[in-house]
């Protein structure tokens, strides 16, 4: 059996009296980069701190490369961590910061100096070796933090919102730099972020977290097109979630009914098989605005927002308000009657949730 680089088994964690993780399960394969994505308070940082050993789970176990580390203190786990604020030692030079972990491992000079120099070379900071962190820019500090975490050759690299303190342009550059370093070293990595674009662009797989649980752990493409529930669907931009009941099946076509008794026809070739009750999810660009017809949902144009290449409309329908995009060339006026169709190949089908 191939052992995973990281496995979290049924982790329950508390801060004081409040439970922050509710039976978390996750495994990360060797050399894989997995992001933990979610809004603040979803438990992603707690998961990271558990893996690092700064906090202990109330129950459950943590294994690194098949070895149980649940009871080990942080300094025995050997995980490289890049902190959100970099946490560089202000009293040490760049080279001393990077060499810190090697020094703890009793790597003697000149070996230590050689490895530090090689690492600084790799992150492009060779000429800054003798500077103090206070004399570096945000991006340079970020690189030092990365170098410091990588030089100890950690079995697992963890990055806690590493780009959140950088400006937008630098963020994109650093993102690909991190990804390259991680790939080149075949390093297993866990990346914590609340930025969806960041997570999707950098990761092999993304774990979407909500309220102390992993809701879905999949490749970015899968998450983006096939969310497993309404939470993930909304998270990845399916703004319109319409519950449907099938009223008639006719070969490849189903006629289904939404709230308010409005009916629409869907092609199963595009949506895949559906149950008798389901929720269809559509992004604003996944809805087609056309003239009213008996296969579309009737609606009235509400507020119009200019988005650059398109207009976005809020449309009132018997099935509830929908958000749809329409072409810039043909602006629609408030109060106009329209028919809304689903572009089924851009939609997602979700199970009906009881709420």
């Amino acid at each position, binding site marked *: 059996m191939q052992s995973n680089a990281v496995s979290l088994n049924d982790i329950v964690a508390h801060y004081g009296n409040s439970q922050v993780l509710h039976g978390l399960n996750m495994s990360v394969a060797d050399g894989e980069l997995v992001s933990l994505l979610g809004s603040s308070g979803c438990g992603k940082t707690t998961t990271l701190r558990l893996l690092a050993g700064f906090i202990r789970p109330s129950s459950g176990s943590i294994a690194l490369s098949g070895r149980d580390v649940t009871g080990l203190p942080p*300094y025995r786990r050997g995980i490289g961590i890049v902190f959100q604020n970099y946490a560089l*030692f202000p009293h040490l*030079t760049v080279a001393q910061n990077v060499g*810190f972990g090697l020094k703890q491992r009793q790597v003697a000079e000149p070996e230590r100096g050689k490895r530090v120099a090689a690492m600084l070379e790799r992150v492009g900071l060779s000429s800054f070796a003798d500077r103090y962190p206070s004399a570096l820019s945000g991006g340079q500090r970020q690189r030092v933090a990365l170098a410091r975490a990588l030089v100890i050759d950690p079995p697992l690299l963890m990055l806690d919102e590493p780009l959140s303190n950088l400006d937008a342009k630098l963020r994109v550059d650093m993102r690909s730099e991190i990804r390259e370093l991680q790939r080149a070293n075949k390093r297993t990595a866990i990346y914590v972020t609340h930025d969806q674009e960041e997570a999707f662009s950098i990761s092999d797989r993304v774990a979407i977290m909500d309220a102390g649980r992993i809701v879905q752990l999949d490749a970015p493409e899968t998450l983006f097109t096939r969310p497993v529930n309404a939470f993930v669907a909304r998270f990845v931009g399916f703004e319109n979630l319409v519950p449907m009941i099938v009223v008639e099946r006719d070969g490849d076509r189903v006629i289904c009914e939404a709230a308010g008794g409005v009916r629409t026809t869907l092609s199963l070739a595009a949506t895949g098989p559906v149950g008798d009750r389901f929720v269809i999810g559509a992004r604003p660009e996944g809805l087609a605005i056309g003239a009213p017809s008996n296969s579309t949902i009737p609606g009235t144009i509400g507020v119009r927002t200019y988005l650059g290449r398109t207009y976005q409309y809020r449309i009132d329908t018997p099935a509830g308000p929908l958000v749809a995009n329409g072409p810039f060339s043909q602006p629609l006026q408030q109060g106009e009657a329209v028919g809304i169709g689903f572009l089924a190949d851009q939609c997602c089908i979700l199970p009906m949730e009881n709420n």
Partner: protein
Amino acid sequence: MGADTITRTNRVTALAPWLLVLPATMAVFALLAVPVGSTLAESFSNPLGVFENYRRFFASDYNRMVVLRSFWIAFATTAIALAAGFFAAYLIAGSGPRTKRILILLSVFPLLTGVVVRSFGWMVILGRNGILNNALIELGLINAPLSLLFNQGAVLVGMVYLFLPLMILSLVGVLETIDQDLYSAAESLGSSPFGVFRQVTFPLALPGMVVGSILVFTGSLATFVTPRLLGGERQMTLATLLHEKAIISFDWEAANTIATIMIVLTALSLVALGMLAKRLSPKGRA
């Protein structure tokens, strides 16, 4: 007329800050600069020579011993306060906001009573019929009371008690500013808790240690009540010697000389500690 009013208002506005600091400045000048200046001047105005008073002072074995003792007591007080204060401050800085408030309050509590009261307190504890001796006798550990007062130990106990709060406050101030993630970072890089303390906490706390040491060292070099009450005649320090010369033997020349020596020693200690701080303190701090 309008322009004139504006000009006058401007002039008053420009003068206002100077007028506001004038009373305090005059008070400082009259109550501090003048007496200190005349003390310095008097100590150098012996008709037999400018430094005659100093020559005479340092010619005495007894006086030289007093200088050394004052230095030693100040040094020992600082060292003990530093060691004890560091752990207290470390504990305080690391505790939750509520506990922190209570602990800080407790550690500065002694500052709310006067120096005399606090030193008398120690006399009550350490005296021949004091609490400590009585307790030891009651417990059958000793037969006759120990003489715990009027020795250097008593002075040190009183001094450390006196100055520990200052040290703790200085250290809490600097320990609180250390980013907790630095500890986490060091640990994740393989540093044991002791290693984190030695390589991160200690060097980053140095500025606070220097400030605290300056406060305690200069304070204990100058303090008079505690060595007077707990040390007595046998533990004469510069401060108590000065008091004796001035108040008991009315030897104002000697008193002025001692005062000047104390000022110079304090200034020199400040410079020395400052230089030490510069050498030891972590570079590159923003």
